[in-house]
């Protein structure tokens, strides 16, 4: 049934901290690894070792350059200076399904293969019903759905539904593969319907934001904006060469200055 539930008991999703993400792609790789062996059809690659490889991925990292408009983002003395002389900062930007409250990908599905779960709000695809028409990919503003070229069905982030409830794996592993693997701790998993959950608190404290709110999709996943960069103290440049000299006092100091004078 592709009508959306009016209410979900939980709203499970991710918080992605854009201040912390270093763009290492570990989440991308671990996502692919887990979801190739787990839920549903494997994520296939076409021509993986050839000149023009393509494949299905549920999580991709884009890297953006943000050019400061008013200097609030970074200071003039930063290393990241564009050729055109303006301030810029680099933001690594992981993107996967946002498990939207008003998920357009679910309602456009003609078969009932796409659905949003009432119990936890996860948006899933029943791969036995999917006809691979691709309309859900067209309706998603974020590019969260990809057609698997080998299976002919739509693949999307499952929020690792086969990990988070899986009693056969150690408890600490019962979170999405991307969250579990992130070496920088830039990704967090939790229930947004609980205002006291870690993710809700994080979003409240850091001003977590929605992507493309104008699309009206009400994404569950939130992004934490990069923190403003601190400005280094502006002062006259020090004589670094002098600092490198060993300090000489007393007799050695007198000898040192006397020998200097002799040239």
């Amino acid at each position, binding site marked *: 049934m592709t009508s959306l539930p009016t209410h979900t008991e939980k709203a499970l999703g991710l918080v992605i901290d854009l201040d912390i993400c270093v763009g290492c792609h570990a989440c991308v790789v671990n996502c692919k690894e887990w979801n190739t062996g787990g839920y549903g059809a494997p994520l296939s690659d076409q021509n993986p070792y050839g000149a023009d490889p393509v494949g299905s991925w549920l999580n991709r990292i*884009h890297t953006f350059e943000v050019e400061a*408009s008013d200097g609030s983002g970074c200071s003039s003395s930063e290393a990241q200076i564009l050729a055109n002389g303006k301030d810029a900062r680099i933001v690594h930007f992981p993107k996967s399904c946002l498990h939207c409250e008003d998920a357009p990908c679910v*309602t456009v599905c003609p078969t009932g293969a796409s659905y949003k779960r009432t119990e936890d709000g996860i948006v899933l695809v029943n791969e036995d019903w999917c006809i691979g028409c691709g309309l859900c990919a067209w309706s*998603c503003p974020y590019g969260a759905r990809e057609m698997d070229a080998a299976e002919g069905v739509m693949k999307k982030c499952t929020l690792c539904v086969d990990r988070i409830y899986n009693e056969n794996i150690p408890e600490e592993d019962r979170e999405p593969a991307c969250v579990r693997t992130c070496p920088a701790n830039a990704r967090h998993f939790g229930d947004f319907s609980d205002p006291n959950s870690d993710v809700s608190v994080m979003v409240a404290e850091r001003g977590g*934001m929605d992507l*493309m709110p104008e699309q009206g999709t009400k994404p569950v996943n939130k992004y934490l904006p990069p923190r403003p960069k601190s400005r280094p103290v502006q002062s006259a440049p020090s004589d670094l060469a002098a600092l490198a000299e060993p300090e000489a006092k007393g007799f050695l100091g007198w000898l040192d200055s006397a020998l200097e004078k002799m040239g």
Partner: protein
Amino acid sequence: MHPASSIIVFTTLSGMGFGLIAMLGLGAAPSDGTAGLVVCALSFILTGIGLASSTFHLGHPERAWRALTQWRSSWLSREGVLAVVTLGIFAIYAALWVFAADRVAVVGILLTLLSLVTVYATAMIYGSLKTVPRWRTGLTPLCYLLFAVAGGALLAATVSALMGHGAENTLYAALVLMVIAWGAKFVWWNRSDRTTLASIGSSPETATGLGDIGKVRLLEAPHSSPNYLMKEMVYRVGRKHAQKLRLMAVALGGGIPVLALLAAVVSAGGGFILVIAVLSHLVGMMTERWLFFAEAEHSVSLYYGHR
């Protein structure tokens, strides 16, 4: 958006086929059994090829029947259900016409309405997508509907002329509808040129949420080679030829058919020239539909540095 040939064939042929059924329902084409056989067969061929073609791009065509189940929420599903219902009723109407030379007027009117609603549903598959601003307008279904009935009227007039029947009313209807349809398309094009992602307030800044810091530009794409999303939704090939192709679409899809219809009105016949008009119209419509997809920008492109 990627202009898949299966989708172009689907929307143009099934549009024309259901447009023909709509015109037949209103009494177009001669009422004898032979003419009935020809036009009804033509309707079935056009809608049949169109609908079959729509399944060609599916990953699992054998499951296409499942697409008839979600009519409550999905325009694609509604389109499928309406097409099946319309063609089912049309089969009965056609059988009565061909074998009993009896065109049941009430059923005809019902078929006209159902055909129009089917074409409306086809258009709404695209017209309802928020992600493609230039499609999201009431003008999209209006154009689809007008092109369907204009093409249908042209076909009905052509068959009538070929079978030696005068069909002045149908000729006039085709002429008027053809002009109005392209007029509506001009309005659609005019709007689409002004309706961009930026004009609805979407930008790389809103897509990333980084607008508070400054202007956002893609530095590195997720992978070194293009992916499904880019091929499907960040399709930009041929946009530079858009103006030439628009001219071609208007000339072939509207200009030549209108001239041929005028000639047919004057010469009171002109079956052959109308056949050329039909073929020209079809090529023009496919060009128009190619542009409909190829020119459309999708919000995913904001993540890939293309507009």
